[in-house]
């Protein structure tokens, strides 16, 4: 094995990281300066930074309402995803007739974009009387097939002898899942929490379709309202963007190690 110097790799990684972080920096910089994005030449360093665009954004729209709606929907989605995806992933670790076809069906369903299922999803939600409700907002996101496979890969990596020992001790199947497998699959749980949170938090199209009252809107919908009414207030708009982005970034940063472990757990056994 050659002993190459590591600094070129680190330099390249730092460069790529900076490129990836530039949009975030630019959004934050604009939120404290209000500088128009079309200003030329653009300034890299914030000129006359001040926090008042956040105050404007806070009062321009009913932010607490939007925030609480997003939180309520995200909590419902996360809870449902953990239960449903873990149960489905646990089922897929077992051998049963037609398992291969079910896995194929799941994989095939992953290729159908959500936009293609909006009309039936709307009709089902309407028949259930859930239009313009938190439950209606959360319902289509109650399970994600990718997360089912994350759980399956994570459960597959747990030694079967552990499950057999539990069965010999008379532990029921649902307790095996919740009390033995899930505590051992914490990275998968973290990945599920983060993915379902981010997908729910950033969802724009579904709330746009089923929400009618302003007080039921979520944060991404609030962003569109902002764009429609206050087109020339760059600073406040970007401040609102930061306020929408911050919770997702916080959740990711808090659980990033488990998230990465969860995504890669299927790559190895044991």
């Amino acid at each position, binding site marked *: 094995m050659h002993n190459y110097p590591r600094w070129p790799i680190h330099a390249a990684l730092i460069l790529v990281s900076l490129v990836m972080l530039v949009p975030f920096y630019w959004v934050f910089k604009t939120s404290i300066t209000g500088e128009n994005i079309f200003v030329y030449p653009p300034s890299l360093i914030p000129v006359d930074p*001040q*926090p*008042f665009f956040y*105050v*404007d954004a806070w*009062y*321009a729209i009913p932010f607490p309402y939007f925030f609480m709606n997003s939180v309520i929907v995200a909590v419902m989605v996360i809870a449902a995803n953990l239960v449903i995806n873990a149960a489905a992933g646990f089922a897929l670790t077992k051998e049963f007739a037609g398992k291969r076809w079910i896995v194929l069906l799941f994989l095939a369903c992953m290729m159908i974009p959500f936009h293609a299922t909006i009309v039936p999803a709307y009709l089902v939600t309407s028949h259930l009387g859930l239009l313009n409700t938190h439950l209606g907002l959360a319902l289509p996101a109650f399970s994600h097939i990718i997360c089912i496979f994350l759980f399956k890969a994570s459960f597959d990596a747990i030694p079967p002898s552990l499950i057999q020992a539990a069965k010999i001790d008379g532990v029921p199947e649902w307790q095996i899942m919740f009390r033995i497998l899930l505590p051992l699959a914490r990275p998968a749980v973290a990945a599920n929490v983060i993915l379902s949170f981010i997908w729910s938090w950033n969802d724009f199209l579904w709330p746009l379709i089923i929400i009618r009252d302003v007080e039921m809107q979520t944060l991404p919908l609030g962003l569109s309202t902002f764009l429609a009414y*206050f087109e*020339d*207030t760059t600073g*406040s708009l970007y401040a609102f963007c930061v306020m929408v982005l911050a919770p997702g970034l*916080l959740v990711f940063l*808090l*659980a990033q190690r488990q998230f990465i472990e969860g995504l890669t757990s299927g790559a190895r056994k044991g």
Partner: protein
Amino acid sequence: MGWILNRVTVTFALIAAVVIGWNLYVVRHDDGILEGRVVDQAGAPVAGAHVVLNEQTLVSLAPIAETKTDAQGRFTFERHDRHALVLTAGKDGVGASGRIEVRLYFRNQNRVMSEPIALGADRPA
């Protein structure tokens, strides 16, 4: 103790502490009192100057209150219930001020203007 003192609970506890602290501060400083002084170009107080408090919305400027300065050139507004304000002042024979922007961190925040509003003879009232 590990299940209590981990980075998730500590982070959310810190956020909760900041939010509670900020709201306590707001409750104690939200009488909407805005105080200041009006002076002429020589720095002498201007009595009887007409001071107008405007609301600065995202797209417009609208007057919401007005008052006169006392013998020491002082003025006070109460319960303005806004977070972005613009002050203008003027007096016949002395002149008028430019627009003085007053940005607050929350609605009704109490504020004493650190700099007096100067009336300029080149700007007629």
